């Protein structure tokens, strides 16, 4: 984006891609796929003390059709996996996914018959957040990293970004 100083009055020139991404970046609408303990820390992240609205992402939507950032907060079991996949498919492009906590990232310390060893077995994940549960600061950091990524992206839909990882 640039302000043209040569010309007398108030307009800004930019590229369309940048303008759109700038808008997207500061208005991510998160969908908390909150299933376990991590969801409680997600609640902390949106509440006043950590205040996720400082980053423009406070409009928490529980409808996948209205949101573009899925935050998987909790353990994904084999029973839950088909539902996660459906909800992800219901989100409109472009969309991003944060795997919050070790359970969503890799199964965490649940290496057993019921727990999926990472949400990326069923849907593509953009950002993995360490911690059991991650602190709100950690989650906010992941959010800002997603924002950086959004800023640099073109109009390519996210499924096309990781063709190899969809439904793996």
């Amino acid at each position, binding site marked *: 984006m640039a302000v043209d100083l040569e010309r007398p009055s108030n307009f800004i020139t930019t590229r369309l891609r940048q303008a759109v991404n700038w808008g997207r970046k500061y208005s991510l609408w998160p969908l908390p796929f909150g299933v376990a303990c991590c*969801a409680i820390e997600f*609640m902390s992240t949106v*509440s006043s003390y950590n205040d996720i609205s400082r980053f423009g992402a406070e409009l928490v939507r529980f409808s996948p059709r209205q949101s573009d950032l899925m935050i998987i907060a909790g353990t994904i*079991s084999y029973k839950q996996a088909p539902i996660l996949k459906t909800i992800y498919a219901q989100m409109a492009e472009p969309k991003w996914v944060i795997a919050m906590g070790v359970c969503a990232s890799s199964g965490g310390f649940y290496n057993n*018959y019921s727990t999926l*060893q990472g949400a990326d077995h069923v849907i593509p994940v953009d950002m993995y957040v360490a911690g059991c549960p991650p602190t709100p600061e950690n989650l906010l950091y992941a959010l800002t990293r997603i924002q950086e990524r959004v800023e640099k992206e073109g109009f390519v839909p996210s499924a096309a970004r990781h063709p190899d990882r969809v439904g793996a």
Partner: protein
Amino acid sequence: MSQKLVERLRQEFGARILGEASEHGDESVTVARDDLPLVLAHLRDHEGCEQLSDVVGIDHPGRQERFEVVYLLRSLSRRHRIQVRVDVPEDEAVPSACGLYRSANWHEREVYDLFGVPFAGHPDLRRILCHHEFEGHALRKDYPIEQGQECTRPEKLFSDEDIAHAARRANEVSAQPGVVLDEVHPSDLLTVNLGPSHPAMHGALRAECLLDGETIIEARTEIGYIHRCFEKEAEDHTWAQVMPYTDRLNYCSAMLNNSIYAMAVEKLLGVEATPRAQAIRVIVSELSRIIDHLVCICANLVDIGALTNYWYLYNVRESIYQSLEKLCGSRLTTNYARIGGMSHDLYPGFDEEIKAKLQEMEQGISDVMKLVARNRIFLDRTVGVGAISTADALSWGYTGPCLRATGLAWDLRKEAPYSGYDQYEFDVPTGENGDTHDRIMVRMAEMIQSRRIILQALENLPSGPVDVDDARVILPPKAKVYGSIEGVMNQFKLIYEGIQVPAGRGYGFGEGANGELGFFCVSDGTGHPYRMKVRPPCFPIFSSYAELIEGGMVPDAIAILGSLNIIAGELDR
């Protein structure tokens, strides 16, 4: 008292009592499978055992009667408890207790799911924690813990036939004299799936509802979406390693789980925590109860549309979290208690800080009470909604605030005091109608009582060590580990082989935030639990949910669910 109960049973049933045992204060009798309904009915009708607390399956591979099923009964009116055991060979059925106790339904389904023991006469014998495409039985000793099985699609809870049946039933109602309603066709009924991915269903509970207009005429619930195999993991770890897993049962109040688990294992070991450790456990447990209730109430109010309260209450929680983080390094998953003590002592200045935070809590509660206590909308949404009578609640296995809301002052901290709860003065708040409103108000009042307990405990905090002086359970101090061969060996054995809990079994329980939280532990003398069964308070409570919401509207279902405070982590384990 319990001792006499066993004697009375022997008199009543004579040789039909095949065996009796008394271990760590838990009395039990063994009966033949066919006699089980008779004995349970006798206990319920003549010995005042109103409640079936839990049903535990145990696998003994190699034994001719491979499985053992233990029914844990409790009498609240006469204050005794007893366990009834039956042995059963593979593929043979145990007569179901569903006709006697409503809570038996889900407990028996769980045993069927995880052990493959069928129950004769059970109305709905399906899997409950594992998914419907799962093959085998996960808690059998020969099922490998890491063998996952994929699930391709969610289960449909209502078949077309069920829907047709529901329509017929709806028409029977309208056929009664004086009721004039249009005829209901199966196609008029709408199936609405509440959850599992639904904000009010906490991401992990599912209720499928059949709606006629806006009224729920039938509902079915499904759980198991975050079944994380706590019990199998426990068998795979040493006793001490189980502690962090307990954090994640009821993750809203991890300290309570820690303390009660430690108590249960100490019971088997025959050690008692030091007075200081007991007092610290009381303090952190009550803090946990407060933050658990705070989250429950604020989420409940958000679900019925009262958002402002969320900020008032969550800020208090956040502030208590910061102290907990200071205390044990983690906000949520605290892992603070140890078998035989605590991981470390309180930090300097803890009491001043907590006192200030309790002040904040009172402020938060009074702010919220100003907003809701006489708020027309709040009252309309909660009073009389999801009401349950004391007798029903007992049969469903209710404990904790949900039971107290029906008017029965039953609190294990008073009835079976542990960790020195008998030294503290506090009241047991109760409700009257057992409805959503009373459940919220009981929790509000309990937080004030918890504050009273914490203040007394801080005032009279005993000095002395936090750990018992027992090399069998407590790691030696570092100076000893580095300075002596005994110290090294002690450390090595405790870490590698684990605490050697003597063979035996015991049921340790306490008042969790949602009610009776119990750990049924079986040890075979090796360093690992042979069997560990959690009695999660919200499991029996949620089993009644479908019945509570039938006949009401969808928004009521949401309000009721919030007030029951179902925590998926402990529900599914």
